[in-house]
């Protein structure tokens, strides 16, 4: 369990370009949860997640992991938390894809057999073909670079996996694929997953609980259904609800007896239920 206690983060403190990126944030991430963090650009999402493994230290407040303070200044990185940062393809440096993905496990001083196993697992995880193992990552496409970067964190098998806008800039097949696999991994291994995202369809489909950030503050927090029940509040802060939810809200407005739905799967059942009741009449 990870707990944020009154966390405030100020960039360039005391200078004219000072920026309060987090303002008294209190949060709780339970083990095995799939949490979504949404908010418009500049609302502090990246700053928030970078506190989780100690990359950033809070200006005031603290972060506890299983009751232990991981936000003490001078304390190194907490490797139980694996973060895939925004635009992670910028971190690529090795000569081959294998070496790139093995970088993390190698630094963890695992033996070579284990490293090989983990690289294979991670490649499989993100859906990269085996035959590119020995090619240079710089020769690959943007989407493939992204997958390599994600794989390099997956290979470290963190207990908590944090993804900062992992699908921005990927094609729709690539998006779905990666998230689907992360979701399966989460179900199977009971890994905690924190997903920072702009895409509400994604959030509705995979996330259990949503945290909404607005101007450095947590303004809303709750189950997906509760959050998407308030489309007007979300629109006010520049966010949307899934398009399928909009469609069903419209149906409700027109006088049909439907529940609020947020994913295509829910929509399908709800639609057939509606059809049946209409036919019975």
């Amino acid at each position, binding site marked *: 369990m990870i707990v944020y206690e009154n966390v405030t983060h100020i*960039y*360039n403190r*005391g*200078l*004219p*370009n000072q920026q309060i990126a987090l303002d008294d944030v209190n949060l709780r991430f339970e083990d095995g949860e799939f949490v979504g963090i949404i908010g418009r650009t500049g609302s502090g999402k990246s700053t928030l997640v*970078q506190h989780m*493994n100690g*990359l*950033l230290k809070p200006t005031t407040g603290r972060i506890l992991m299983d009751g232990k303070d991981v936000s003490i200044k001078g304390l*190194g*990185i907490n*490797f139980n938390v*694996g*973060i895939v*940062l925004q635009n*992670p393809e*910028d*971190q*690529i*440096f*090795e000569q081959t894809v294998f070496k790139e993905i093995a*970088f*993390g496990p190698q*630094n*963890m001083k695992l033996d070579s057999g284990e490293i090989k196993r983990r690289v294979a697992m991670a490649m499989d995880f993100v859906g990269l073909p085996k035959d590119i193992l020995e090619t240079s990552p*710089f020769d690959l496409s943007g989407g493939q670079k992204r997958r390599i970067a994600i794989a*390099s*964190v997956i290979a*470290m098998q963190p207990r908590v996996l944090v993804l900062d806008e992992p699908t921005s800039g990927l094609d729709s097949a690539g998006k779905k694929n990666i998230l689907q696999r992360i979701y399966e991994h989460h179900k199977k291994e009971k890994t905690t997953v924190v997903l920072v995202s702009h895409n509400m369809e994604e959030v509705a489909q995979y996330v259990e609980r949503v945290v909404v950030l607005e101007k450095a503050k947590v303004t809303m927090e709750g189950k997906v259904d509760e959050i998407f029940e308030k489309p007007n509040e979300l629109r006010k802060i520049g966010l949307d609800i899934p398009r399928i939810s909009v469609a069903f809200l419209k149906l409700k407005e027109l006088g049909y007896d439907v529940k609020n739905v947020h994913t295509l799967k829910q929509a399908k059942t709800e639609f057939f239920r509606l059809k049946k009741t209409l036919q019975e009449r």
Partner: protein
Amino acid sequence: MNPILQEVTLGNFLQTNSVVHKIDPRLKLGSVFVYTILICMFRGIYALLLTFVALLAVYKGAKIPLKALWKNLKVIVPIITIAAMVNIFLIPGSVVFEIWFLKVTKEGLIFTLMMFFRASCLVSGTALLTFTTSPGSLVDALEYFARPVRMFGGSPNEIAMAISIAIRFVPTLFTELGKIIAAQKSRVAPFDSPKLRERLRAYLPVIVPLFHITSKRAEDLACAMESRCYAGNNKRTKFRILRFGTLDFVALVLMLVCAVGTFWVDRWRLYS
């Protein structure tokens, strides 16, 4: 992220709407140039001290917090410290006190103090220029001083543009560098290892992506400039035209008084 990199202000413009910000950039650039030469010429400590105090006063006038200056000065502290350690013991002269076999001389102390203030003045002066002058104005000033190259068929605009882009990208590169370090740290790169060799090796995964990103940036920038028909030839007209006003005249006089004054103090109190 590395706390130093995270908040570095090197080469950053800080808008505070002060009088100093409004001074003609040519005068500011010229003053920094003249003062750099003067500071290197000073032979005594009094002129250096005076210059440093005067610089601090201008910081006050420009409403730049000294904390911003300190962030730049901090960078030279380790270099100065090492040089001081060597000089303080090695310069012969009248001995002030002795520690075991090491003799500390008056000459050594003064030399070290002078080196400290010389470096501080140089850093504060150049930092003041970038704090108070927007990159755009700086190019205008550079272009003005680069005019003589026309005689040899060169283009002052191209030179100014190249320099300004370089200055403009220093903070961006620092941000980029910070991000890469963060990413590699997240992958257990041994930046904090007690072994020096390990720590140095940890920087390879930082340098390679940095070069990659920089060259990609440069290419993108070149394409963007080309597609907007940028040509640095001498037929370009200007949007902002620099005018030397009353404020600039006052500033010029003040600057000359300071320059002559400190120089006189220096030669008058020679080797004090």
